[in-house]
């Protein structure tokens, strides 16, 4: 009933609609808040800001702002850059960067160069992800102009775009089937983002060994971990034995933990017992617990008693966590 009320009211009085949405006690609240924020965005940036200010939970407010941004960028001529700054905040952009796909797409559609310039000047922490998204969107729409912008920035020695520019060119070489040239120019990256993932995906499909070598010489970073997850999955799905060898020879650290957990994801559905052996390669306690929970999830469906026995005996686990896990899955 509340859904109909909020949706009906959102068009005429978004502030009343957001208050009604926030009074909802179950998980429907999220959708209702978004409905109200989107309706407010149709009335302009000012109205959207007024509505978003009433959302107290920062996570929820930022997510609703991202959804409102989509409407603003697609249906209005409001300034999206100021809106982002006012409602999400540049320092918090990282927490929603992966949800800004459509908002950025519409921003690029209307103002490609302005969006790229804005992205290039963002703080280090969030720039790679947003700039990557922007360049991919721009390139999808108008590859020549995107490349011209990158070239201009490189000629002006703008270091802020150096990593994205290198990835962009490698990505293009891979898309054009120039795999060897791409491999020869693989850059050292540390920041995650869509371009890193695209390079990792394409390389893993074409030549997983080269993808593995690239990741082996990259410094430990979030980018390396995300790429390792994608490469490991793709490689293990096509050639389990080579992928296993590669993961095992990685030096200990977060990338190896991520890759081992990915091996578990690939194997556990079919053979949870085999997958359970990969837990031994994971060193970080949180990653280990995630892996154990994943193996247990599949194994308990196949054989609950065996799965439970395994959780009871798997070594190097926080005993408080183990006891809680066993109670929860009694």
């Amino acid at each position: 009933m509340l859904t109909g009320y909020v949706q009906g009211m959102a068009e005429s009085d978004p502030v009343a609609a957001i208050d009604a949405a926030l009074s909802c006690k179950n998980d429907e609240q999220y959708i209702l808040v978004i409905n109200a924020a989107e309706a407010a965005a149709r009335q302009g940036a000012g109205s959207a800001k007024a509505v978003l200010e009433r959302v107290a939970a920062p996570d929820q407010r930022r997510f609703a702002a991202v959804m409102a941004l989509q409407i603003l960028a697609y249906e209005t001529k409001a300034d999206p850059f100021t809106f982002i700054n006012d409602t999400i905040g540049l320092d918090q952009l990282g927490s929603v960067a992966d949800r800004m796909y459509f908002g950025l797409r519409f921003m690029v559609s209307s103002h490609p160069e302005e969006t790229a310039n804005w992205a290039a000047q963002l703080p280090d922490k969030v720039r790679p992800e947003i700039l990557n998204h922007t360049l991919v969107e721009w390139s999808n729409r108008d590859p020549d102009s995107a490349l011209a912008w990158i070239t201009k920035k490189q000629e002006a020695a703008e270091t802020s775009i150096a990593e994205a520019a290198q990835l962009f060119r490698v990505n293009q070489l891979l898309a054009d089937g120039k795999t060897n040239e791409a491999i020869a120019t693989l850059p050292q990256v540390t920041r995650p983002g869509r371009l890193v993932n695209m390079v990792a995906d394409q390389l893993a499909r074409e030549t997983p060994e080269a993808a593995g070598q690239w990741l082996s010489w990259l410094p430990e970073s979030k980018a390396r971990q995300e790429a390792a997850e994608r490469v490991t999955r793709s490689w293990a799905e096509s050639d389990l034995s080579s992928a296993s060898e590669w993961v095992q020879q990685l030096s200990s650290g977060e990338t190896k933990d991520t890759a081992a957990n990915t091996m578990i994801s690939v194997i556990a559905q079919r053979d949870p017992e085999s997958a359970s052996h990969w837990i031994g390669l994971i060193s970080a306690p949180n990653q280990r617990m995630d892996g154990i929970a994943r193996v247990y999830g599949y194994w308990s469906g196949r054989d609950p008693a065996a799965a439970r026995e395994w959780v009871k005996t798997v070594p190097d686990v926080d005993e408080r966590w183990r006891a809680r896990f066993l109670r929860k899955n009694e």
Partner: protein
Amino acid sequence: MIRAILTLLIGLMLGFALRGIRSDSYVHPSSTAALSSSETPRDKGTSVAAADTADLFSRIASTLRDSNPLAGRADLRRALANLDASSLQELIRQAEKLPPKYRNELVSSLFERWLELDRPGAETWLRAAMRDQGCFEAWARIAPDEALKFSVAPNAPRWAWHVSETALQSLAGNDSRTRFLTLGKLAPSFNRDRLLTQEFKAWAGKEPGAALAWLVNLPKGKLCDSLEREGLVQLASTEPDKATARANELIPDLKATIIGNEFISMLTSALAAKDSLRALEFAQSLPAELREQPLIATTAAWAKSDPLAALEWAQANGVDLAEVYQYGRVSTSTTVLLSAFQSESSKTVDWILALPEGNDRGRWIQYLMDDDILKGDMELGQRLFDALPPERQRQSAHDFGWALAENDRLPDLETWTRLFPNEFVRDRAFSAAVGQVFDKSPARAEAILAGLSDGRLRDATLAELSSQECAASIPSAMNHVLQIRDDIMRRDVMDDMVENWLRHDRETAIDWLKSQENLPRAWVQQWLAD
């Protein structure tokens, strides 16, 4: 100002619901339109060429509307019909400044009109820079040969693939062979190869033999190999002997992944759709590393016509009844058990229930309890639930309790006790049912909770409600958690919730933890340390 208000009133009276193109500085095109969209310049007998371009643009833009878009399109067509070529470039320039929602349609419509009136001028503009996709699609309808060449050029944007489709439609209609042969004459590129694969599949679906024979014209390599496999899968339906003979020649060079080989699995599945027993023979003849998925596909196909025989055979030959059929990266919902159940539900259930006790029997019964299989048949659900071994009853209790409360069917407490004699299982099922009620009506769930006396059942219900509520508000959810009497359960639920909260919104979580004077300090310290 008065003019703007009058325009708005006219718009409202005409039933327009134009919304949206807003900014502090931007004025919606309709606000300067003095004419309604039904009053075309021709009606008024004025010359379009003489009209001021800004007014003209406003008039055209006012045809874009959120309500009754079909009528809007008709108005747009009428408005465009009266334009001359000289004003179009300027109108497009203005339309390009609109937000994407309005720009795409208007720019492409104006461009299409320009093409009709002055094709060389329009094409010169089109080629000068990357334009909206809609313009290229309009061009593809009028100049399909050139548009096709543009769209499959090596540096064409990925979206140009859609332009190729429009051009192919103009050049070859729906005839998949002609479409394929048209593409086959063009140089390879990402877009061409992608489209060629799509058209080959369509052609091979109708004439697999001819499509496969054409492949001699293609250089050997990845594309040719992939098209041949696609063709053989299609050929399996019409000439299974030829398809399997060629497949057998290819098998020694095929790579097996963790789920076998995509081509062989798809080929066998296509064979099974025509003749499941013949397909089963082929599947059995495959090397071990390629055999598993084809056996699932063929036995599942057989189960559609003879469920019990297929179930018996699968069980005797190590084909897992609940394993889903997968090929490549696609995981289907097809299983032997599902096919048998869909064919003869009660015979299948009887057959499963008659199996000797054991882990597989429990697993297969649990599989049948899936919502998508039960489809609300709670009587059957209860029968299956009762047949589960105790550990699987504990596993399934939550989902079954949730399903029981769907469609507002919440039994009374006596019925719960009868249905679930085991107290632990009952607590889990009942609390899930109240969680389901909360999902639809939090107030009703609270009323049910208020009627429960202290004890395990109430604690389990509080835990369930808190997990439902934490998506909307963690502090509210915590109010439920803090009412849990059992110390261990309360701590377990809080551990989960606080850890999650600290990950997503550390600042608020810490503030809340500090404000809770009744929480043991050791707990708080541990959460913050973790």
